């Protein structure tokens, strides 16, 4: 069974030789350096034999000047193609995305025109998907599954531009500014979803963090008003091009209250199913015939603070409780932070593959 066959079968809830696995969304800079030093290998995905590879659109040809939106940024800051300012912190791992600050370009926007005229990137431009098609083919030639990354789909992208508190206040006020911002982002995401589906990618990875560890960030009613129809449109766009493309949805935290809605709009796979706040076995019992689970190994608990035995036990428990009949993809629940001992990563992979490294 190739990795690709394993991923496709398991996520369609069929039995496989073992559950597929990968290393989640990436590895913190300090951790990556340490893994490279330990293994002598440049790419931990190759070294550990992960079943997937992530793919993003090719580089943009636009060179937009966002300085009128961002003002003066501190030394060492960068600006991405959406106009979001990335500001370094005092952290020792400052170039790692979770440890930087944001400067939101639309935080001070006061009129509809400010939002309507904001220069959004060309992430939906056809030329940026030529490289995607080539990368998907290369990944498939290696027998691996290709994941097309569409994370921060709508809500997160919108609050990166507007600021989270401002955007949530806009939602509460029923502001037309929020409507226009979300609609403009959704239009871009629909274009991206179509290109990704046409590229032959196996899984399209949508995602918007709408959970806290205690429950939803906003009420389910607010999510259904502002976000569900737009997320549904981006999923429908992909399915329109390729009906059997797998739809993966990521939200940190406890989003159990949204699961029936997510299934409704065509989500096949829920990620990351944080064990600190969700019971993957219970979710499997309730939704396992319609939903697959990706993640489930805690980067907030077992991986950084448990022993290798704890990690192996967590993996075995998941396989026994969630993996029955397929539907389980094992992965750390998020980026592997610097505190995760190398031995725990090895224990994770060994427990999944049944092989000694």
């Amino acid at each position, binding site marked *: 069974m190739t990795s690709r066959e394993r991923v496709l079968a398991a996520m369609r809830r069929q039995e496989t030789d073992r559950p597929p696995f990968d290393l989640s969304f990436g590895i913190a800079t300090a951790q990556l350096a340490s893994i490279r030093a330990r293994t002598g290998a440049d790419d931990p995905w190759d070294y550990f034999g992960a079943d997937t590879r992530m793919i993003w659109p090719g580089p943009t040809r636009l060179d937009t000047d966002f300085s009128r939106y961002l003002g003066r940024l501190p030394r060492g800051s960068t600006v991405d193609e959406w106009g979001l300012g990335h500001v370094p912190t*005092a952290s020792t791992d400052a170039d790692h995305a979770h440890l930087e600050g*944001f400067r939101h370009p639309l935080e001070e926007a006061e009129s509809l025109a400010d939002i309507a005229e904001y220069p959004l990137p060309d992430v939906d431009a056809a030329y940026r998907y030529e490289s995607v098609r080539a990368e998907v083919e290369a990944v498939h030639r290696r027998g691996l599954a290709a994941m097309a990354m569409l994370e921060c789909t709508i809500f997160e992208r919108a609050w990166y531009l507007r600021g989270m508190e401002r955007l*949530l206040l806009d939602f509460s006020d029923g502001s037309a500014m929020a409507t226009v911002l979300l609609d403009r982002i959704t239009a871009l995401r629909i274009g991206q979803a179509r290109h990704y589906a046409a590229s032959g990618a196996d899984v399209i990875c949508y995602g918007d963090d709408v959970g806290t560890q205690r*429950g939803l960030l906003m*009420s389910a009613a607010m999510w259904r008003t502002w976000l569900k129809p737009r997320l549904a449109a981006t999923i429908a766009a992909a399915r329109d091009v390729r009906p059997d493309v797998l739809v993966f949805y990521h939200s940190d935290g406890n989003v159990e209250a949204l699961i029936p809605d997510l299934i409704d709009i065509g989500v096949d796979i829920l990620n990351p199913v944080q064990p600190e706040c969700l019971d993957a076995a219970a979710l499997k019992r309730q939704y396992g015939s319609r939903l697959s689970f990706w993640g489930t190994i805690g980067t*907030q608990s077992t991986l*950084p603070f448990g022993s290798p035995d704890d990690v192996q036990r967590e993996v075995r428990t998941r396989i026994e409780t969630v993996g029955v009949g397929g539907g389980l993809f094992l992965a750390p629940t998020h980026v592997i*932070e610097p505190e995760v001992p190398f031995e725990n990563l090895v224990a994770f992979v060994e427990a999944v593959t049944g092989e000694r490294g």
Partner: protein
Amino acid sequence: MDTDALSPLMSALRDAVLDGDARGAASATERALGQGVDPQRLVDGALIPAMDEAGRRFENGEFFVPELLVSARALKASQAIVTPLLAQRGGGVARGRVAIGTVKGDMHDIGKNLVVALLQGGGFDVVDLGTDVPPTRFVSAVTNDRADIVGLSALLTTTMLQMKATLKAMETAGVRGSVKVIVGGAPVTQRFADEIGADGYADNAAAALALARRLMAPGA
């Protein structure tokens, strides 16, 4: 229940804050003051109970982050009128001063901001130290800002470990004994709080307010 809470003007103010109606909160405040209600009684009888109720609803899952944000905005609309009046006569009755920030390297401040809103609503004087706050700044919050309580927040396991370094810096500076330290954030647990020697842990914003009140109670 305070008799003030029963008067129609006080309940109008309390409801406006709970409904997140900033304009309504400002006009209810003006009307109450116009009828001779003492500003401190407005704070004690309407504003604090309103934000307490908002916190209770948040804890019960009836309110989410947006509802807390609009309530805090309405609270501020009332405070903008009341606070200058209290300042004219030497300040309101603060329940204590809390200096709070996310620890060094951590920029995630939504949780911290909710705690700030509820503490302010609860009558505390809050010094918001912001994000990515180095240990030395928490030390000076005790020495210069005269905080009774210092609050440390972190979202990541990586930055959570900075809490330990911050407590150590406070000990080295000799200020640890004169302040209560409370901690919170997604990866933080009571066990971790105990391990690093914090005085308290809360798993949500409303619980943080209750914790701060316990720590400021006589004999705590």
